[in-house]
């Protein structure tokens, strides 16, 4: 297990190196000059030249890439051109918000998707099944930003039950407040995160509910379920202990990939709900040609994605005793 984990971690190295190189190549190809963006279109050519020298943009690309790798090896992600702060700090300030909404969306979509999938499988062929699968089909067919804006219009403007934008206290802090007997911040945080998480989780819930339904149906048709019936076990135990655990395996196996999709979806969702996360930062950094910041954001997305996948794979071995990593 440890050897497996280490081997997986070792694979991060080529991945990180590759992502840096690809990002760098794309940023080089992007027309537009960070120095001009920095100084404004009314900058003189001389000022632009000075800034390019100060930022090291005048060096050949291989020197810049090489020195970025060297800095990265020392754990230095460089300075953001626009944020006036180290890239690591800029990311640190935003990463929590994105992980929070992505994780809440993930949990929400797992709960929703699994419940709908189970319901559809148990009541296969009924109205319930039809309803769940209609939700699933519409969920993956709906453009996310459209859904988000409709949701905001309905819940924040028409019904005025949820705040339209922004983020409350970080959920972890708010939970801490709750433990100290103050539920206000938690309610506030939950009210803020509800719509972004729902928007972000919609597609995922739909995907999971479909997978869950087919997996549940497959599991319910298996011999050990027949055995459980023959043992006279009651339906709740058969469904939730015997069938559910087995049916969850394929769902668990795709959670890592889905988390990647959620991180990506954050780009659109965050800009709609004013959620102060990495997604907005990524778009801003690209549109400012803030190369070090783009590098940093893309890397943190990639590493978060890879880590979650690793965690999921390790978790899988706990859930399924047949899997052993050597």
């Amino acid at each position, binding site marked *: 297990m440890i050897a497996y984990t280490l081997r997986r971690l070792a*694979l991060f190295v080529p991945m990180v190196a590759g992502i840096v190189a*690809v990002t760098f190549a794309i940023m080089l190809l992007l027309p537009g000059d960070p120095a001009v963006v920095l100084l404004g279109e009314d900058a003189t050519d001389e000022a632009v030249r000075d800034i390019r020298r100060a930022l090291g943009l005048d060096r050949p690309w291989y020197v810049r890439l090489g020195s970025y790798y060297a800095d990265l090896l020392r754990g230095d992600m460089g300075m953001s051109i626009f944020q006036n702060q180290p890239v690591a700090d800029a990311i640190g300030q935003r990463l929590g918000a994105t992980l929070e909404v992505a994780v809440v969306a993930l949990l929400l979509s797992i709960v929703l998707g699994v419940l709908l999938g189970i319901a559809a499988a148990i009541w296969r062929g009924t109205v319930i099944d039809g309803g769940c699968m209609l939700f699933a089909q519409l969920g*993956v*067919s709906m*453009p996310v930003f459209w859904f988000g804006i409709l949701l905001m219009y309905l819940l924040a403007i028409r019904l005025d039950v949820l705040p339209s934008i922004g983020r409350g206290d970080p959920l972890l802090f708010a939970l801490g407040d709750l433990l100290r007997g103050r539920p206000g911040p938690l309610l506030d945080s939950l009210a803020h995160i509800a719509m972004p998480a729902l928007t972000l989780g919609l597609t995922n819930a739909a*995907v999971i509910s479909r997978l869950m339904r087919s997996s549940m149906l497959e599991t319910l048709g298996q011999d050990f379920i027949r055995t459980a019936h023959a043992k006279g076990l009651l339906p709740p135990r058969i469904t939730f202990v015997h069938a559910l655990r087995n049916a969850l395996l394929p769902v668990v196996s795709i959670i890592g990939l*889905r988390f990647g*999709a959620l991180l*990506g979806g954050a780009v659109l969702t965050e800009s709609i709900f004013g959620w102060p996360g990495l997604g907005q930062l990524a778009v801003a950094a690209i549109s400012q040609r803030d190369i070090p910041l783009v590098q940093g954001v893309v890397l943190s*997305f990639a590493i978060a994605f890879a880590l979650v996948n690793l965690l999921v794979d390790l978790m899988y071995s706990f859930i399924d005793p047949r899997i052993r990593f050597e």
Partner: protein
Amino acid sequence: MARPRIAGNLSLVVGGAIVLAILLFALLGPTLSGYSVEGMDMRSRFATPTADHWLGTDNFGRDLWTRMSVGARVSVSIALMSVGIAVLVGATVGLVCGYLGGWVDLVVMRVVDVFLGFPPIVLALAIVAALGPGVVNLTISLAAVFWTEYARVVRSVTLAQREMDYVTAAVALGASSARIVFLEILPNAIGPVIVLATLGLGTAIIAESGLSFLGFGVEPPTPTWGWTLAYGTRYLRSDPWLSTVAGLAIMVTVLGFNLFGDGLRDILDPRGVAQRVRRTPTQ
């Protein structure tokens, strides 16, 4: 296991019907309405449906029926082309990696890791920004996001098939690699790939609308659905009709492809190989 009959496969029938309807709409729409796709009329902006304008008009008073049907051509061709490229590249890579194994597989799979590591929309957005907007560049950027799925699924099928007795036997009988790959292994991958590609068409259409929303779509006045929705969303409060038409068009089309893909899955990929590598990029 017996193959489910096509007639009994509701998803396939409904999905196929929707896709067919969209294709007919794309082909015949402008002829039926008789309007030009670019003819503006600023005095009748944001009209709701009338006898003249069957779907109403857009933010420039252009006939929405005509715009949507020409938009269907654009959206569907972007989807078809991007998925087509992704399938070609991905399947080739998957076959080569799965069949050769060894260091080739190791290296190429790290490249796949790299592409998977990017948040899909960020990658697509950066590539469009680098290449400039337009149908071709948008297609390329989507293909760059999609190809990894096909590489992964084809590779896993290839790996599984390579261990099968009949492949071993073919090798022992001195069959050439090309023969084994194309006649023995590839046919097994076709089912999941077709399923994945059908579902991918829907994803591509949604991705186009997302990029348009962020301002990276095909340039106007090309009537893409994504632009219409992106504009329409901005007029959501005063004139909700525009975004409703565009949103529903996208939704119904994607629904059609998804249902069709699901139906195909029952027939072509009963074990759900395709399902496990999907991550619906750019959503």
